[in-house]
């Protein structure tokens, strides 16, 4: 986790540890780093810290944000970067000190993520009903990571209302020889894929569109049409 050494327009310095995932910078008092300077926008910029890496983002400020003298909108922070906002400077210091070998693969250890990260993990594992919701992040313990659950509910025909729990990692649906699809569960959600090569034009439809060769991600309330039967894809709350 890095920190910012803030030097304001009067020359006064203070330190700010980047312990939160989002640290806001601006003129208003509700910012984490409030800068009393008319050249600073109310909500001027934000520093996002994920694991031990920090990223600076300008929030469409009036006078812009500079790093080492260059205007930036989004910028990954490196040790020693000097951010200029109005008449204030903020120097970024990473806890790792000077940058190490850029090409080598590095591992970020879950143990170092801190409380903010754990809270984030808890939130994500709780799971929003939309499949666009963040997947359970990397550090979720294997035992705690309960698989997501979803189901298909038949929306038309004599079986309307009937439900199929998608409790398997790979579920196949349809009529063999006519049209078959497979629904697979991946880390970030459920995907549907056509099975059986190119059997004519009979590809399953999702929201009225035939699915491609590639797996298509399913979202909550998507309509899946297979062998003339309409089904609704539902994520469990």
């Amino acid at each position, binding site marked *: 986790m890095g920190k910012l050494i803030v030097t304001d327009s009067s020359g006064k310095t203070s330190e700010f540890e980047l312990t939160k995932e989002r640290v806001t910078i601006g003129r208003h008092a509700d910012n984490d780093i409030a800068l009393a300077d008319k050249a600073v926008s109310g909500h001027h910029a934000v520093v996002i810290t994920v694991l031990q890496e920090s990223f600076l983002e300008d929030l469409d400020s009036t006078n812009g944000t500079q790093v080492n003298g260059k205007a930036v909108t989004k910028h990954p922070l490196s040790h020693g970067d000097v951010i200029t906002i109005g008449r204030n400077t903020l120097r970024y210091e990473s806890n790792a000190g000077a940058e190490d070998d*850029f090409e080598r*693969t590095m591992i*970020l250890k*879950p143990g170092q993520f801190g409380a903010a990260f754990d809270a984030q993990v808890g939130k994500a594992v709780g799971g929003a009903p939309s499949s666009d919701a963040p997947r359970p992040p990397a550090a979720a313990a294997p035992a705690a990571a309960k698989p997501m659950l979803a189901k298909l509910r038949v929306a038309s025909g004599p079986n309307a209302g009937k439900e199929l729990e998608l409790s398997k990692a790979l579920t196949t649906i349809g009529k063999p020889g006519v049209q078959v699809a497979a629904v697979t*569960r991946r880390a970030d959600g459920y995907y549907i894929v056509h099975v059986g090569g190119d059997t004519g034009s009979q590809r399953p439809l999702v929201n009225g569109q035939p699915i491609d060769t590639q797996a298509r991600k399913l979202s909550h309330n998507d309509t899946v049409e297979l062998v003339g*039967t309409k089904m609704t894809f539902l994520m469990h709350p």
Partner: protein
Amino acid sequence: MALKGKVATALRSDTGRVRGNNEDAVGEDPDIGLLVLADGMGGHNAGEIASGISVTTVLDVVRRRWAQLRHGEVDADSGHSVEALTLRAAIEQAHRAIHTLAQSQPQCAGMGTTIVACLLHDDRMSIAYVGDSRLYRLRNGKLEQITRDHSLVEELIARGHYSRADAERLVRKNIVTRALGVEPEVAIDLIEDTVEVGDLILLCSDGLSDMVSDELIGLTLAKHAATLDYAADALVTLANTRGGKDNVSVALARVDRSFARGRRWYERLIDWF
């Protein structure tokens, strides 16, 4: 179940143009239909040790358990096939072996490895992976990345901070969020998917995917699909001509004939409707 004559494979591992040693490892068991690829990290030769142990252990554990497996069964709790669970158990065993060695040998302290393993069975594939080594599938000329890296890039996208385009442009690609052997516990992701005749499956280390675009990987595979050895060489050459900054490894499998147990599995389905 022998996959000889049904699935063709080609494996390559190359040091690249910059590194002094190759910390990647690849391996296969063509009879079972198992491909394993690992990208090790750690000082001295520790990266090589970690990736080497992981590949050897996974091959060994799956081979030993294969004959006793109740093939075709699905675990009710997890929804996974017994084959996928075997793959996960094998990777867990590799993880423990690496972690133990890293704890006991000072020169191995902090070593770790990514891993991606693919088990082909009954016209399906079970995939298990940790880190940023990937599995792609080429079907009808289109390349699809099946695994999702455990990396800082993906973490920022998943949390909604960055679009994929911004993250890939701005965020360092070489930061992984999970690896075998580093922490006492490791979370292994499992994916199960279908396999069709004509499919080409690619496992690769980031030495390929960081150097060569997905588009170019897809075009190269499509062009040389008929001669897998040539396709594998072409991918390694592409990574090296684009800088070869990292070790580059690829494991390719092409499905030439159905390898379903008995009838094709989807023809045995009972109509759900």
